[in-house]
């Protein structure tokens, strides 16, 4: 007999003593142990895993077909709950001295706490997930996101029971709800009737004598009274329901009555990645699937898995924001798709600085300082983004913004380039970043992470220190101050590793420090991103104009995997410094400054929140498979509709320049212009992914 059959017998009570002995013996192996644990976990978790909508449907059909009513609300359970409440009151409430009464059992719903008034419960920090069954709030206010995406705010004094992600029972007090598309049909049961959402924001209050008020701020709701009266309320409408007489009054909605609750929809979080479901860029998913179909086989299967992960949307021109020209989908189009997906977060890149990337050519921008660039940046670019993001329907999305890759770093090392020198002399990069953050962060649901290049650019103390000073100066000049900056991102669209597992900067090979290798680390103080970003963070949160210590770090891990057969599995035995370092470091580029379509690179760690101390997340800012720039000059035309420039750093035949120590560029050949799909590179990134992608399951 197999394990599942034995478990089935135990569950239905037909197991014999022999079966039991057999089962006991098998549990000695981890495989069978896990089988039992999984079986029992599933059994006990199934009631809450089943969707609520279905239950509601069942109940409706039971009623209309005249069969016996559903036993969902069982008298036994109900009295059990009261009994429980009394006991718990004695044991817990007294001990917690006026702290709100909370209890969780197997029923209820898992919610993510968006914001709780301090002092309600130590376990309810923003972003924490708790299973909540009943909530009696003595004081304060709690906003929580349900699995359905509904943002529910409970204002004290209140007593509610969460039946599941789609149904709440309100006994007394006030709740308000912001309901995304995925949460349509969300219901609030009250003593005087049931309120069903049809896509909206609304508030419900159960007052004295069980008289209930329903206020609709946006969209529509349907109300069914205890007497089976039906009523639809639209935005601006409110109604009063009496448990015995039904609808007794119609009036105008008063949002201020619930305003505290509604406002928390925009509450700013310390780490927006916790509890977030990020938008999967539909256009990127389509490109990935097309690439996978083209390739087929095992690699094709691995490619398809990329579609499961979120990448950032690059707003690299005014047309990209508005969805004009060669950009069929603008920012609003992506935000709408995010809402349709039921996402509560999206990543975007703010990247149209005047004289952008003044030290590079493939990614240089459309705006020029000499041609009224800063004004156009403010009015045509940043303001256009602001007017889209500030629409009420996007308020439920956390918008994570990467601010202007490479601009501020250019001011530290690249003043010898005329366009950077001009940006420096006019203060354009600094003012542009300050304006962008000040304007966009005036919305509470946006999050700003300033690009800080990478260790191989600014890791030397002689660069890091002035850069930290520059960032402090920038922060101090942001309208609203430097607390508007949520953090910093390193390695955007680059190839540097998070940490080197097999060597350290100070380690010596034949009395020579690893960091001293001229052709590679060149006396850099920081040989990986974790060390660099933490050193920068420390400099930023201390001294004059210090940033708050709550700032978090991000790392772009989209292309820093360096897997595949060439990945070292331990330190090299070589006693020659150069051989030791190059055989031991994960990074297989020819020079740290090479950053165009690098040969041998792979996809890195998957996007994840809280990956390391001080880090808010690992993210994929650069969508893997999009070219960094063309490998040869492509004139403006069908292959280059935006007339993007040619940067010889993307040309594998180029002999290099002072920026990369006159080495070969290590770029892949036959690359299309920046941002266009580069199938050969995508294939290599997938092949060399680390951790590698699994092939089974077809996910």
């Amino acid at each position, binding site marked *: 007999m197999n394990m599942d059959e034995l478990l089935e017998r135990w569950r239905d009570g037909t197991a014999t*003593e022999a079966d039991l002995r057999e089962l006991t013996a098998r549990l000695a192996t981890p495989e069978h142990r896990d089988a*039992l644990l999984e079986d029992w976990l599933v059994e*006990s978790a199934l009631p809450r895993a089943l969707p609520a909508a279905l239950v509601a449907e069942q109940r409706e059909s039971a009623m209309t077909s005249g069969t016996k009513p559903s036993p969902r609300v069982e008298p036994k359970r109900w009295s059990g709950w009261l009994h429980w409440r009394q006991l718990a009151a004695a044991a817990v409430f007294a001990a917690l001295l006026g702290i709100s009464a909370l209890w969780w059992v197997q029923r209820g719903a898992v919610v993510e706490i968006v914001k709780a008034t301090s002092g309600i419960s130590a376990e309810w920090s923003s972003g924490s997930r708790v299973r909540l069954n009943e909530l009696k709030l003595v004081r304060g206010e709690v906003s929580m996101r349900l699995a359905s995406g509904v943002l529910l705010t409970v204002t004290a004094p209140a007593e509610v029971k969460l039946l599941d992600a789609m149904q709440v029972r309100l006994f007394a007090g006030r709740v308000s709800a912001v309901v995304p598309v995925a949460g349509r049909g969300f219901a609030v049961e009250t003593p005087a009737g049931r309120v069903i959402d049809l896509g909206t924001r609304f508030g419900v209050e159960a007052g004295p004598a069980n008289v209930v008020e329903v206020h609709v701020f946006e969209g529509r709701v349907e109300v069914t009274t205890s007497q089976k009266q039906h009523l639809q309320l639209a935005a601006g409408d409110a109604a009063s329901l009496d448990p015995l007489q039904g609808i007794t009054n119609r009036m105008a909605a008063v949002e201020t009555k619930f305003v505290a609750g509604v406002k928390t929809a925009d509450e700013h979080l310390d780490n927006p990645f916790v509890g977030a479901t990020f938008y999967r860029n539909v256009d990127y998913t389509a490109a990935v699937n097309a690439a996978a179909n083209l390739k087929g086989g095992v690699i094709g299967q691995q490619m398809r898995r990329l579609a499961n992960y979120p990448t950032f949307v690059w707003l690299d021109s005014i047309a990209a924001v508005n969805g004009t020209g060669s950009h069929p989908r603008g920012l609003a189009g992506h935000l709408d798709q995010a809402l349709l997906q039921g996402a509560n977060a999206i990543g975007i890149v703010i990247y149209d600085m005047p004289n952008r990337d003044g030290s590079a050519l493939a990614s240089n921008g459309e705006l020029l300082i000499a041609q009224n660039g800063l004004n156009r940046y403010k009015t045509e670019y940043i303001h256009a983004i602001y007017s889209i993001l500030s629409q009420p329907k996007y308020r439920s999305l956390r918008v994570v913004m990467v601010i202007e890759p490479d601009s501020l770093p250019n001011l530290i090392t690249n003043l010898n380039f005329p366009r950077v020198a001009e940006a420096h002399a006019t203060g354009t990069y600094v003012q542009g970043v300050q304006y962008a953050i000040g304007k966009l962060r005036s919305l509470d649901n946006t999050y700003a992470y300033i690009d800080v290049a990478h260790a191989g650019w600014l890791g030397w103390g002689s660069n890091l220190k002035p850069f930290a000073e520059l960032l402090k100066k920038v922060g101090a000049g942001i309208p609203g101050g430097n607390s508007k900056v949520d953090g910093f991102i390193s390695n955007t669209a680059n190839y540097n590793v998070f940490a080197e597992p097999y060597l350290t900067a100070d380690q010596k090979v034949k009395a020579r420090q690893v960091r001293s290798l001229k052709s590679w680390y060149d006396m850099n103080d920081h040989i990986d991103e974790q060390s660099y970003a933490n050193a920068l963070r420390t400099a930023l949160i201390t001294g004059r104009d210090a940033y708050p210590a709550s700032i978090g770090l991000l790392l772009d891990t989209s292309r820093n995997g360096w897997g595949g057969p060439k990945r070292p599995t331990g330190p090299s035995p070589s006693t020659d410094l150069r051989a030791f370092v190059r055989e031991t470091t994960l990074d297989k580029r020819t020079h740290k400054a090479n950053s165009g379509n690098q040969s041998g690179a792979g996809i890195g760690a998957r996007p994840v929140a809280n990956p390391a101390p001080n880090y808010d997340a690992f993210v994929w800012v650069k969508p893997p498979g999009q070219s960094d720039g063309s490998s040869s000059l492509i004139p403006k035309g069908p292959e280059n509709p935006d007339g993007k420039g040619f940067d010889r750093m993307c040309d594998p035949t180029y002999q290099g320049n002072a920026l990369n120590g006159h080495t070969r560029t290590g770029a892949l050949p036959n690359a299309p212009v920046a941002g266009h799909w580069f199938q050969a590179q995508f294939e290599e990134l997938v092949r060399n992914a680390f951790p590698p992608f699994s092939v089974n399951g077809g996910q």
Partner: protein
Amino acid sequence: MSAESTAIQQAAAEFIRDRHLLGAFVGGLLRDVHAAEDVLQEVWLRLSAEVGKGTRIENQPAWCRGVARNLIRQHWEKQQTAKVVAGSEALAAFMERVEQCFAETDHLEHFATARLAALDECVAALPERSRRLLSLKYTQRASMDDIADEVGQSFEAVKKALIRIRAALLECVRRKLSQEEPTI
């Protein structure tokens, strides 16, 4: 706030964190959802009373399982209806082994949460009809006879269908666990 109430809060937080596994332990042994809930409640009351007295509990999950085990035995003794006699050696050995199995996962922080997350996805991917059957059994707690009536099928057919759906769910959970990395 007093030291005792802080300790109770901490105990509550830990209890909440581990509730899925304790729930599975109690529910799996008892196989009666109402009795299991009573036991869980009683475990918490005893735990909070103990912590309230100032007792330091070294290994709370193990302590809770121990209390639950004794409560389950008492429940069975009262019932005396189990096919397997409550006092049998085979049952005692089984319980002991099961308790050990749960203890082995105490250090695996995401053991339960990873499986529950996978379960949510797997339930969502089930055909409508399968979900309806599960809903009747697990959410509405209808009897097998009532479910058979409701869907217009024989008792045996419903029973087989439920076993099949459950097996498919487990298979799906295991498959997801073997391939999914954490993501945001």
